[in-house]
């Protein structure tokens, strides 16, 4: 077993377990696990207080590859199980690792409720738009027309947008990043960790075997700048290779539009400034898609609210302060009682 170490001395390497990583060569998950290990080291978290809980799928193998506490559970239920863990011990720093099938299909209901309750967890949703571990069926985030073993003629379903779903559920922290963008990934994970409450992070993750390149239309180096909008609170929504494109609200219509700075007399001051506490704006940013819009990355929404786990324990403490000292015999003898004695 690993000996006890002080958090200061831990490096990214110290957060790796002794287990051999078994993802396909070239899988985006390697980049994510690398990023997470580095973030844990940078944050200086204590290994023993950190717990990774996952469901089922490629992403869900994640806990095996970290040297923290870990629980690989069942398909779709990680959010529910993590809720129980966090409620039982709020001191633990609990991360949930899920995928698009795990978190939005079989576990969609739990995702809804963990977000609306605002349980203090970091929820990482690895979105690769495919069922990898079951060999390539289309997932709830697959684009319409996706050909897969179960949809040989192309899928006929409309995909769900993970971040828009999270916002609709009432999530108080919603962010988006990409597996290969290590610096950005680290920044977003740090922000998610700093947020008290359910922090929902969608990570676009490339499945090299079954859905290779599904995000290349905005992640390919050559076109990334024109197709990615990196949002930052208090900064204008500007993007593009020449940093001359911006997002603003259409006149009189609650819709966003892309405009070019310098054209039609538009200046940087005409571009909308990102307000991460504005849920309506976050929802519109989440819905943006190429080719007409860039993909918004970064913290789309962050507006902290009381957490479910804290409120649960506040209620318990309040009742304890108001009521008896928890004497068990007082409980059993409450209400109408009577004595049957020798005298009858």
């Amino acid at each position, binding site marked *: 077993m690993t000996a006890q170490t002080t958090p200061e001395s831990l490096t990214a390497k110290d957060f790796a377990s002794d287990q051999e990583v078994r993802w396909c060569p070239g899988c985006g998950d390697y980049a994510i696990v690398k990023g997470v290990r580095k973030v844990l080291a940078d944050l200086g978290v204590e290994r023993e207080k950190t717990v990774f809980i996952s469901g089922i799928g490629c992403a869900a193998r994640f806990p095996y590859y970290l040297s*923290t506490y870990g629980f690989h*559970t069942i398909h779709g239920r990680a959010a529910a*199980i993590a809720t129980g*863990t966090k409620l*039982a011990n709020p001191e633990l720093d609990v991360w949930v690792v899920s995928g698009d099938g795990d978190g939005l299909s079989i576990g969609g209901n739990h995702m809804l409720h963990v977000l609306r309750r605002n349980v203090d967890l970091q929820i990482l949703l690895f979105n690769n738009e495919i069922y990898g571990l079951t060999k390539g069926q289309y997932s709830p985030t697959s684009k319409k027309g996706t050909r897969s073993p179960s949809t040989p003629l192309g899928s006929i379903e409309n995909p769900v947008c993970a971040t828009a779903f999270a916002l609709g559920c009432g999530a108080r922290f919603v962010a988006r990043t990409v597996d290969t963008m290590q610096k950005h990934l680290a920044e977003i994970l740090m922000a998610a960790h700093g947020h008290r409450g359910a922090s929902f992070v969608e990570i676009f993750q490339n499945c090299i075997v079954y859905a290779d390149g599904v995000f290349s239309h905005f992640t390919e180096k050559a076109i990334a700048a024109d197709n990615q909008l990196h949002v930052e609170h208090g900064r204008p929504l500007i993007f593009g290779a020449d940093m001359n494109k911006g997002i603003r609200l259409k006149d009189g219509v609650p819709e966003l539009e892309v405009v070019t700075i310098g054209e039609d007399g538009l200046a940087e001051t005409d571009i909308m400034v990102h307000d991460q506490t504005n849920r309506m704006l976050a929802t519109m940013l989440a819905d943006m898609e190429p080719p007409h819009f860039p993909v918004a990355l970064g913290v789309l929404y962050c507006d902290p609210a009381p957490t479910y786990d804290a409120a649960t324990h506040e209620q318990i403490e309040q009742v304890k302060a108001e009521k008896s000292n928890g004497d068990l015999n007082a409980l059993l003898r409450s209400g109408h009682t009577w004595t049957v004695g020798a005298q*009858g």
Partner: protein
Amino acid sequence: MTAAATAKARKKEGRHEIDDVVIRFAGDSGDGIQLTGGQFSEATAMAGNDLATFPDFPAEIRAPAGTTYGVSAFQINFGAHIIETSGDVPDVLVALNPAALAVNIDELKDGGLLILDTGSFTDRNIEKAGYVSNPLKDDTLKKFRTVKVDISKLTLEAVKPFGLSQKDGLRCKNLWTLGLVDWLFGRERQPTIDWVAERFTARPEIAEANIAALNAGHAFGETAELPGEIGTYIVPPAELEPGLYRNATGAETLAWGLVVGSHLADLDMAFCSYPITPASGVLHVLARLKQYDVMTFQAEDEIAAIGAAIGASYAGALGVTSSSGPGVALKSEALGLAIAVELPLILINSQRAGPSTGMPTKTEQSDLYQAVFGRNADSPLAVLAARSPADCFEVALEAVRIATKYMTPVIVLSDTYIANAAEPWLIPDADKIEPFPAEFRTDPAGFAPFMRNNETLARPWVKPGTPGMEHRVGGLEKAHESGDVSYDPENHHQMTVLRHEKIDRIADDLPLQEIELGGESGQLAVVGWGSTYGALHQAVGHARDDGLAISHIHLRHIWPLPRNLGDLLKRFDKVLVPELNTGQLKTLLRSEYLVPAVGLNRVTGKPFKIAEIEAAIRDILES
């Protein structure tokens, strides 16, 4: 005044002394029948009688008024001796409308006492009840001693001073009726008066009106000069084991048992549940007990409920979840996870009639297979069954002890009848129960997540947060001891055998099966489990009074079975297994012990009648 002295004084009033009586209250589901029955039970318990109750109500919260399917009933059997069932047939029927009469009259004993609210016998209500002519005016009731009173009118008169609407006024009808029945059986009204005052603190006019109705019903009895054949009665106190008593339902005793059990195990409890009839009562009781280190969590569904409970156990609390059959079905995959990662977990199943939604408010014992076998793969766990509301407390303690000592899920089988029925409960002294503190491993030296205790085969329980012991668990097969993911063929075989062996070894830790009644061998063993206890015990007792060599065996431990059970059963010529299912324990006993057990199987949604068991005993002995 002691209960005995009160009874003597009542007898001097010219009351007939009787040993026991069965009363059934029946009315519309909006008539407050359950409340009336509950209050009469309290007063009866305070009078020192032993008692058993059977609340029997429709699933509809407010079924259309006056319909037969909207009839709610509450039966109480009380006596001057030990009472073990809610009674086969009522001696007294209180029917607050024609539908309640129509549904219940066939079960009233010939010559039984029938109390009717004539005010509810309107043409429309009579027709809704399916009568072609008014039963008050034809021969329908001639076999019975009938008290015909316009309870509706008399209630409205009694509550007139309080300015209630006609609708609110009529709602006091049940208290008026209770007052009359209290008078007939010499019950004290004070517990009910106290209860009403507390319940309606915020609406004193409603409290006063209800108390006035209660007193008016009582006064009616005193002054109305009912015909002599009606009579008034006194049931002397029963000789119960000395001690402090209270009335309790199975939902309450289970909840309290879990609280006491988690304290004895030195654990916080995380009770995670999703509402379902008839299991929700346990959640409701525990939600009010946060001062006892109880956390309750109403999850979004059955799967999340057990998931959160497993998550809590993983964190080092006692995870408990509770449901009924259909909900338990949804939890089965997660149960498999708890078995695979070997964490303590308690699942309470308050069984109801099925399959599917079935009859949610009716009782059945048809989830034994589900509990013992109902999961994918070889996934053994421990199964316990409670026999009565009082027994639920001890079974809950036993469940906590086994779950934590053996690091295993434990299923506790209760049922609709036990969950809702009340009986006097000899309150235990929590300070005198031997604690069984759960052990957490904190020493990293030589630790591996799936190393095992030599005696119990339990793996160590480690709380996340413990330094130096970080490890991973999961539903993938694990290598023996190290807990690393393993696809090794021999390892899987070994782990499967170990999981099986661990549950089997629990039997070494259980008391040998005792015989409830009768000798250790004979003509016939009547073997039961769960809420049929009272009917089986009574029927076997009667047969033994007739000189038959019969014994009653009642199982608490369904899985693993007690070590001596097979030998015990083989000492009887015949084995009869009465169950409220099509023969689930019977099949288990036959397959485990190769004994020629036969079943008595009824699934009516109601408990067994003693007479049904007696008839089956006669049949099997004659065959």
